[in-house]
């Protein structure tokens, strides 16, 4: 079968993403509407009366049928408008473009840390399986998976921020204004999320590397007299890189989800904080906007991972 051009592949994948976006935003919208409690009560203020709440529903179009409201939102999105917060009137696109870089920076730092620590751990564990190095790595990896991120986050704040005063305990700074300050603020949350990623990378890499190293062609390479180092770096890692890309794509998606809790612990105004605020206040345009963004990000990450996999391993059909 002839290989299709990359642009067609990307186009096709993006087209497939449409139903996913529709389904995800519709389901979240439905969930928000199914739960009792709507924003009209909040909008009506402290001294609300029944009449005022009804009036508010009318003003904001909250009395329209559920599907009509979703349709109206969707119609705006198609025109490139994510509409605005019902409560504060801020454009959802503005909120997201301000919040997204904060979240992205944390995830980027977490990913780099996870890879920088996880890959060497996985490799040294795989070289001598069941040796003491392997066992130590296994132990660290198990801890990394078992320790909840928010708990680690609080310990980090208590020790590194409050006691040693090395890094700020809360907040975020804009990367474009002062990159160093921004990284300093994002470092602790990044570490808190990275722990899980490190463990996952180390474990998965060890597993797939062991499989490769015990295969017949590696035995042949040994027989040819190749050094362990060359076998490992030239053949072993290249062969597990497909697995690695897959792990990374899954990690990025999980890390994005983990920011919801971590951002609360560090008071970081990112996408996680935004969606929590939106959900609590039933401010559905915000929730919809964030879900929409997240879905696109997840789809893009998966797409890039797939393309990379196909690039290193021609056997993978696109």
């Amino acid at each position, binding site marked *: 079968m002839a290989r299709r051009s990359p642009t067609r592949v990307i186009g096709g994948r993006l087209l497939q993403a449409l139903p996913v976006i529709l389904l995800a935003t519709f389901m979240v919208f439905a969930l928000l509407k199914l739960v009792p*409690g*709507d924003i009209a*009560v*909040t909008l009506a203020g*402290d001294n609300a009366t029944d009449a005022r709440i009804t009036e508010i529903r009318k003003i904001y179009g909250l009395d329209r049928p559920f599907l009509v409201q979703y349709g109206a939102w969707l119609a705006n999105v198609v025109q490139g408008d994510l509409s605005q917060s019902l409560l504060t009137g*801020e454009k959802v696109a503005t909120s997201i473009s301000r919040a997204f870089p904060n979240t992205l920076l944390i995830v980027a730092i977490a990913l780099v840390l996870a890879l920088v620590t996880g890959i060497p751990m996985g490799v040294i564990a795989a070289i001598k399986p069941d040796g003491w190095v392997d066992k130590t790595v296994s132990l660290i990896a198990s801890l990394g998976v078992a320790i909840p991120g928010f708990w680690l986050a609080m310990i980090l704040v208590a020790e590194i921020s409050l006691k040693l005063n090395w890094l700020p305990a*809360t907040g975020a700074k804009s990367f474009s204004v002062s990159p160093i300050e921004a990284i300093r603020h994002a470092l602790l949350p990044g570490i808190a999320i990275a722990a899980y990623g490190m463990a996952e990378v180390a474990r998965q890499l060890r597993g797939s590397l062991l499989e490769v190293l015990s295969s017949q062609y590696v035995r042949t390479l040994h027989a040819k007299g190749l050094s362990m180092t060359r076998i490992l770096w030239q053949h072993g890692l290249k062969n597990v890189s497909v697995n690695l890309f897959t792990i990374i794509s899954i990690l990025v998606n999980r890390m994005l989800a983990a920011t919801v809790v971590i951002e609360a612990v560090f*008071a970081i105004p990112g996408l996680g904080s935004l969606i929590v605020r939106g959900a609590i206040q039933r401010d559905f345009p915000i929730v919809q906007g964030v879900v929409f963004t997240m879905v696109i990000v997840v789809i893009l990450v998966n797409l890039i991972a797939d393309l990379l996999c196909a690039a290193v391993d021609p056997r993978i059909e696109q």
Partner: protein
Amino acid sequence: MTQTTRREVMALISGALAGATLGGPAFAQGAPKRGGILRISAPANPSSLDPATGGAGSDHAFLFTMYDTLTEWDFETLKPKPGLAESWSFSDPTTLVLNIRSGVTFHDGTPLDAEAVKFNLERNKSDPKSNIKADLAAMESAAVTGPLQVTVKLSTPDAALPGILSDRAGMMVSPAAVKASAAGNVARTPVGAGAYTFVSWADGEKIVIKRNEKYWKPNRPYPDGIEFSIIPELTTGSRSVTAGQNDLMYQLPPRQKAIVERASNIKIFNGPTLYVFQIFLNWAKPPFDNIKVRQAFNFAIDRETFVKAALASLAEPAYMNLPKAHWAYDKSVAGLYPHDPDKAKKLLAEAGFKDGLPIELVGYPDQDSVQRQEILIEQFRKAGMNVRFLNAPIAEASAAFFGAEKRGSGILAAWTGRPDPSLTYSLMFTKDAYYNGGRGAVPPELEAAIKESRASEDIELRRKAFATVQRLVMENALVAPLAFQFELVAMNKKVQGYRPNLLGKPKYDDVWLES
């Protein structure tokens, strides 16, 4: 402070030495100083920075800095006192004359005169997006009767109005700014006449304001500006203060107090507020349609213990909807429901529930709420009531109880104070009030007494009227008040001049920063 750190001991000793050698007071607070940025950790993003269209009680912490009000209140008792209106009087029970202070301007330079006040009152009363129409329900018209005089005509006597004008309804917005903005929407571009002018608002992140150089109060404000960081997670907020990233945090949870106090650079202020934890009852359906059950419910609660166990003693037991410090507090009502489980059982038996009574209440699922519930469940159990909580997030729970669904027989929630107590009572204890969850009928003498409390401006007469209102509410046991929460504010020691207030919504009038 429970523990004295070594550093503090050293400070005390050196302070005492200095005091002895210089012969002056060891800890004289210096004269207020101008300058510096006050950095505040705020627990909630405002719903709007337009006083007329906003909704949340937590907005005031921002609004008060940018908007001045026609009247203000005494921090300790909430008695109304002059603000932008330097005086007011009722020329007859349905005519309120407001005399506006001269020489005040809005941040945009627009003069704050009678025309501006009339514009605001009419906007608050009739703009479709105004959330405070009900506050001005009694107002029929507002007329300019002099360059600095507004005469408000009322349809019925409303002595609560001066108090109401210290809240949203009295916050003056620049008419020029409203007219210039699209659809009169100034929610994100506030222009008031308060101590600070608006700089920026990033939703859920930060609000920045700077000193109003033309502010009418002499020498105020002291700081160059205020930066509010919005940190909804209260533990994180208090950490931002101990770590020195913020100078002050309000709404510190009682359980955090001991932790924060361990930091040597932090001081904590507390004082009573009108914020009251209470169980709202639905008296339109069983079992609370029976007055004896409602009374038994109130006798079953051990408020003293509740305050100690659930609120770390940082609260005042509540026997009605006003705390001791309030000008309209009535002492005799406080004795109606001493903790008396036997009496409760007896009343239950009389109501036909000799073998115990299951009760379903609505509540919130957070850690603090659940702790309060557990303490109460045990207290009710001892009085023969088997209470079960149906927990849901705040928005869902309150909509389910106060809205159409009518879930549960009561809800463990809270009531934030209102500047005039008549609002508190009319919003909960009139037939069609939203916070009368069951929309149950109210004893006619209570409705009459609430009306009466607004009839005269004489404070002694009003005090008597409120005594009647409070007595009727509690005799009918239409609510089960639990405790008035103290306002807990943690701040860096360089913050000076902060005073708690009874409303429990922070004002930073005299705050200054030591360098």
